[in-house]
């Protein structure tokens, strides 16, 4: 039930926390709390709360008195994450995908299923960039599209590229943004974003639909362009074969 909540506790690496992604890994990395890079990224609710919510996933218990928060006025605040989720509520077809990518399944969101919706809590990926002195972490569930991810990566790693502001050149109103094109913006600094998928293969970011990417990505690596030749065809092949 805890997938996606930072299970790299056992890995030793020199990495700074990104996007508040302590999770279970915090135990081994006490020193990281002293170095805290503030990101402009939206942070999810406290990860600890998410863990509690995960533990509270109720599959069978019908009692929802503990769920009720009567009289809550809708405000644009941080979402309350520590809620037990009830099977089959709200009554949305499991077939209907959550378009904010808060689902994990291919054919349906299974949002009502208490166990499975746990997976949708966070999806932190390590992001490394060739030549950068440290890695970062991003939560893919916070983004709805490649465009958003690209902007976030640019903010994170922009200082390491030759032209740190290359993003702004491409994102003007009439530009017809698509996945690979957006990713290619980083190309202007000769870097290519790639990712390792569930099968362990390294793929070019941007070839598959966003949701498919979120579900299959395990880690990101921003490669030097020269290393990335030959990745594109495999990405397309995967897309065909993935059900």
């Amino acid at each position, binding site marked *: 039930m805890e997938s996606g909540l930072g299970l790299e506790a056992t890995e030793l690496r020199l990495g700074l926390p990104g996007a508040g992604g302590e999770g279970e890994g915090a135990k081994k990395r006490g020193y990281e709390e002293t170095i805290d890079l503030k990101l402009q990224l939206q942070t*999810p609710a406290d990860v600890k709360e998410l863990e509690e919510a995960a533990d509270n996933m109720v599959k069978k218990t019908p009692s929802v008195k503990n769920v009720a928060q*009567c009289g809550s006025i809708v405000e644009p605040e941080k979402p309350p994450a520590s809620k037990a*989720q009830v099977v089959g509520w*709200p*009554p949305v077809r499991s077939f209907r995908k959550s378009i904010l990518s808060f689902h994990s399944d291919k054919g349906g969101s299974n949002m*009502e299923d208490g166990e499975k919706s746990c997976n949708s809590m966070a999806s932190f990926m390590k992001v490394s960039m060739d030549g950068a002195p440290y890695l970062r972490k991003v939560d893919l569930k916070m983004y709805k*599209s490649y465009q958003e991810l690209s902007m976030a990566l640019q903010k994170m790693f922009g200082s390491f590229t030759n032209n740190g502001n290359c993003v702004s050149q491409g994102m003007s109103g009439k530009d017809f943004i698509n996945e690979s094109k957006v990713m290619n913006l980083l190309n202007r600094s000769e870097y290519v974003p790639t990712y390792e998928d569930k099968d362990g293969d390294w793929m070019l970011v941007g070839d598959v639909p966003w949701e498919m990417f979120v579900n299959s990505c395990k880690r990101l690596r921003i490669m030097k362009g020269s290393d990335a030749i030959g990745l594109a065809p495999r990405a397309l092949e995967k897309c065909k074969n993935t059900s």
Partner: protein
Amino acid sequence: MDRAFSWVAAFPDEVWEHTFSFLPTDADRNAVALVCRSWHRIERLSRRKIFVGNCYAVEPAAAVRRFPEVRAATIKGKPHFADFNLTITDWGGGAGRWIQSMAKGWPLLEELRLKRMVVSDDCLEIAARSFKNFRVLSLASCEGFSTAGLASVAANCRNLKALDLHENEVEENCINWISHFPESFTSLVTLNIACLDGEMNVSILERLISRCPNLKTLRLNHVTPLEKLVGLLHRAPQLVDLGIGMLIGEGHPGLFSKLESAFAHLKHLKNLSGIWEAGPLYLPAIYSICEGLTALHLCDSSIQTPELSKVVSRCKNLQQLWAMDLIEDDGLIAVASSCKLLRELRIFPSDPHGLAQPVYLTQYGLLAVSSGCVMLESVLYFCRQMTNSALLAIANNCPNLTCFRLCIIEPYTPDYITQEPLDAGFGAIVELCKDLRRLSISGLLTDRVFKTIGASANRLEMLSVAFAGDTDAGLHYILSGCKKLRKLEIRDCPFGDKALLDNADKLEAMRSLWMSSCSVTLGACRLLAKKMPRLNVEVIDENGGGSLESWPDDCHVEKLYIYRTIAGPRTDAPPFVLTV
């Protein structure tokens, strides 16, 4: 000979048959069949369409025997709450026995529509081979089949007009099933494959479309590449209903104008549905067809309100709008001022579990639409806050509502201004909307609202209740009132034995009752089953199944499904489903 009804013999059977063909509903035909034996005989031999709302209500063989000349059958399986995973897997609803009986008794069957049933590939194969004149296959919310089954339908149904797959769980093991339509096949009018996940071979699809000049409905799945979409659209300018997939692909500038031009050629387009993953940049490509649209389904779209507003404000003839709550109040205000012919509004939650920032969709949006769109009849609305005064205003604005489904996402949410229950608001809906046939209620509700519903909702046929009520009286009000109630589904309410037992007869007048996480005991179920032999009282026990007899009467029943039937207890129930 019916001596008392010798006037029947004054006309030959064909005359009566012709007369009956004007009767609009099955209920009318059923009434006719009760008049005398001759009419019963004539009616049953001339019935061409049959609707079976609950596949377990009657034995397939019996239905086939009684109506031997049926050409179109619609059959529904699982209860509605199965859509939300409230039943168990393998609950039932298998189509096999029906298909087998139909294959034997209705070889001339032309149309088959199944909803919430388990359909195997074998079923599809049998259907494809047995019905020589098969024209329409519609599967909605079904499961159990794969694209291999679809391949055999494609290969064998020479005159197929419609293949309509709506929100099914399909195993995709046969990538090129579309190529099984023979080259000589040209009869397709409807092709809806939106629920499939796999990539289609677009050139085969193109050839199929090119040779089917009568194709009116084409709903593609979400992985159709953008470039290819343009080609497909050019081959089918006569389309009336189009569903497109994700708009992703190589974003070269020429593509936009190609797309725009392709859409502009669809002069007859009335319905548009689809997913717009690439978002707002391609949206202007559809501006040219907006004015002709009567239905727009953007319920898997991540488009935000500014762009959405630009689209809807061009859709002056829109009658049906399905969208995500990303449309927000602002977008709905745009709808209210532009879409004066709107009849149906459905707003779905983009973030049902409240994991992200809430969207600005409140009661104001719905209020605006109710005020601006006087023809509004049908509403499905997911939101997070509501007030009694808004509901009252909506009821006053739209007295012609036939369907009102409001889901306030957080259970037990009261009127957020007064903190009172929403009894008054929903009460106004049922009192002022006299034609209301379907109602779903939510939020903080006491027994009072049920009293009002029971007393006033005289045309109500389907009611969905969740997390509502104080005592058994609530259920009693519903069952003792609501004269036309056919389907009742309840979850997480403090309703129990007494109301059920006091209203046992009502249950036989209804199609079905679902109750889960309420306060029903096994003893009451036993009493009910004993009293009402033509009801199946099914108890779902997820913990172990096993022998029902050994359990005590005061044992709590978690999930209960009661339905009327003339077929007796069903024989295909899994071990967890026990008929009392």
